[in-house]
């Protein structure tokens, strides 16, 4: 177990180095760059531009810039945002809560509902429920998230007036109820696609298990149908889902990007988009590293959880 963690740590470090190199390289190869916004300032001369570049360290060769950035990162200095001159970690931290809130609530909805729909679809195969769920999943998967977001706003905010059209809280309010009120629409919209994915996977996984001999053994023992389903079928069907859940973690960040934009949700997705627009390299790199770590962490947690549930898996 300790051996496994050490090995995983090494692999993760190597991966993070590769990801950061590629990210850094690609980012600096894009035309424009942080200086382009100064270029439009009236009265800007080439000398001033050069001086700014030198101050920001942008005139050095790319590998040197990378090593400088990486060395600071190792010391805990994630750099300073070009845009508002605040430390990158502070900027990310400010948006982290909003994204986490959205991610957690939509994950709970999608895993809960998706799992239930999948199991019911498998146990009531070819029923009206199953067909409806299948068609629903196809629709949810083939229509982009922003469309659902816009339709949601149109119906529930404009026409019915039940839910707010955007933002995380009403300025001047900010009570728990107010947060929840704002949370409903974006988290449901973000969850839709994931419900579809989860229900399809869960249906297949359940069908794989439901015809296995040990399920028949349980029935032959006189175990009640409810326990057969929950203990023997679902327990085994959830195993492959754990790995899937681990991979969903970073997906939620990218999925949140669209949802956060539609609902003007002050999360990391929007921060990423805005920072790209401003060529705010330190923040973009910070977010990139952050999501890379999230990917690795998600997979690690999935592996650990799977190993703790399935006695056949030994981590080595």
């Amino acid at each position: 177990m300790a051996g496994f963690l050490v090995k995983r740590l090494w692999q993760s470090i190597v991966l993070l180095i590769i990801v950061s190199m590629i990210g850094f390289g690609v980012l600096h190869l894009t035309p424009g760059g942080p200086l382009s916004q100064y270029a439009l300032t009236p009265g800007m001369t080439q000398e001033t531009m050069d001086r700014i570049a030198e101050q920001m360290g942008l005139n050095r060769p790319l590998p040197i810039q990378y090593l400088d950035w990486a060395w600071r990162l190792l010391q805990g200095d994630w750099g300073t945002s070009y845009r508002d001159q605040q430390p990158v970690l502070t900027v990310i931290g400010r948006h982290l809560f909003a994204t986490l809130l959205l991610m957690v609530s939509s994950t709970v909805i999608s895993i809960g509902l998706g799992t239930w729909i999948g199991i019911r679809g498998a146990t009531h195969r070819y029923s009206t429920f199953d067909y409806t769920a299948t068609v629903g999943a196809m629709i949810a998967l083939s229509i982009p998230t922003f469309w659902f977001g816009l339709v949601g706003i149109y119906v529930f905010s404009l026409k019915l007036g039940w839910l707010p059209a955007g933002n995380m809280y009403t300025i001047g309010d900010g009570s728990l109820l107010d947060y929840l009120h704002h949370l409903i629409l974006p988290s449901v919209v973000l969850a839709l696609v994931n419900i579809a994915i989860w229900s399809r996977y869960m249906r297949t996984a359940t069908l794989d298990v439901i015809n296995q001999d040990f399920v028949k053994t349980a029935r032959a023992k006189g175990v009640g149908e409810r326990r057969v389903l929950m203990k023997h079928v679902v327990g085994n069907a959830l195993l492959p889902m754990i790995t899937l859940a681990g991979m969903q973690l970073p997906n939620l960040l990218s999925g949140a990007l669209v949802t956060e934009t539609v609902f003007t949700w002050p999360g990391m997705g929007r921060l990423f988009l805005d920072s790209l627009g401003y060529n705010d390299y330190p923040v973009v790199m910070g977010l990139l590293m952050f999501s890379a770590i999230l990917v690795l962490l998600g997979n690690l947690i999935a592996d650990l959880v799977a190993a703790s549930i399935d006695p056949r898996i030994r981590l080595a």
Partner: protein
Amino acid sequence: MTTQGRISENKGDSAMSGPVLSVRNLTVDLPKGMERKHAVQDISFELPRGEILCVIGESGSGKSVTANALMGLLPPLMHVSSGEILFQGQNLLELDEPALRKLRGRVVSMIFQDPLSALNPLMTVGDQVTEVMAAHGEGTAEARSARALELLTEVGLPDPALMLHQYPFRLSGGQRQRVMIAMALALEPDILIADEPTTALDVTTQAQILDLIQQIQRKKGMSVLFITHDFGVVSEIADRVIVMEKGHMVEQGVADTVFSTPQHPYTKRLIAAVPRLRETDRPSASSDRTDDPVLTVEKLNLVYRSGGGWFSRQREVKAVDDANFTLRRGRTLGVVGESGSGKTSLGRLLIKLLDSDSGRILYKGQDIASMKESDFRALRPKIQMIFQDPFASLNPRSTIGHIVTIGPIAQGMRKADARAKALRILEKVGLDAGAFGRYPHEFSGGQRQRVGIARALMFDPDVLVADEAVSALDVSIQAQILELLDKIQRETQVAMFFITHDLRVASQICDELLVMQKGQIVEAGPPSQIFYAPKNAYTRELVAAIPGADHALQKA
């Protein structure tokens, strides 16, 4: 069938002396569009109290359906359309689900064929055994644990206290089957239904499990419905037999009577098809002149290594340990042994699907063991393989023609020539030319195995490696395939390397036998010597475990 009459006279007797269970005119429908309308049709029989009743039949005969109908566990697409199943005056078919559930595990228990998949991989053995008692609200948690320990001891599991906390994947097939039996016995049921419980096990393990079932049945006076396809097994344990064919019950009676004087032609055919130990060696297929070696194996070794990463200790298992033997033209060398003995690894070494660690394999004077894959490729067609599972070994998306010709075409044969040859060989293996354009799913297991043989023959090989080539087939089909292999060998003088776990089959087709145990060849010689004058202790154990070896069946 005089015995049937005697049984039916018992109907009026009191519950204690009469049959524990009666099945009357049971018909179970198959879903529409299947090859026949009924899974079982109008079958009637009685399960006598305290006896072992064997139901024998080939695949698709409806024997498992019958067992599942008794448990009320038919797949949702199958329905009982008529008949009754009487237990203590109650018709089980009229009971609702909660009432049936109360009977399952308490009155009727069941064990299944494949012990590897019959236990929940995520639950400990102890939890699975106690679950039966918990499901019926029996005892406290401690009492159930104590009883589970008692049961595991009773079925002869080693270190039962530790076993309670083990997960199934750590247990061998035989041990898992013992756990299944412990589970089935937990509430001392009146009836035990055993659906091919030893089919997936090695012969020695099979003998032990049969013995265990018999012992327990006698001790508890249980009635056992034992489903099997193996007449050898029937002759070991059955008091009475029912023979089923395509959903019909064609014969029933006292086991010994059915063996000695089978009435129905199907029963006769079935008994005749059971592979028997030959008294004498098989007449050699080789013409006298051609007894020369094709493949000579010298000091061949293969070691499996696992683990050995940065942080774990390496484990070594000798899969093949210093093997020496010779394959001769027109002759069959058999390898027998239990699972894990290394016989399959040995076969794979011969066709270089695995690379050996040391030793030589001489083919026409060349050592192929040390050859690089690129050099060996030209020789590959000459050493061909027939696989065990005819369902998994043919690509379901390819036509038979494609499957059979793709190899030769890849080796440079012209398409038209390959086609002509394929048609010729398909006919030789007993398939008609129409098979060429059809897909594997349109064929039965036996026919698919013929396709597998045709595929191997396309190359005019010098050596055929047959890995359990008939193990997945019904006995009657098995006999046909063995006959076919014999015929082909006589015609082509191909040398065969025949891997099997079934000693009876080995005695039918082999000129010489190797007995393997834990990677080592412990004994070698002609079948007559191996079976009737074994020198090695392990060989003696294997031979003794052959089901039906010392029973009426051998004399029949």
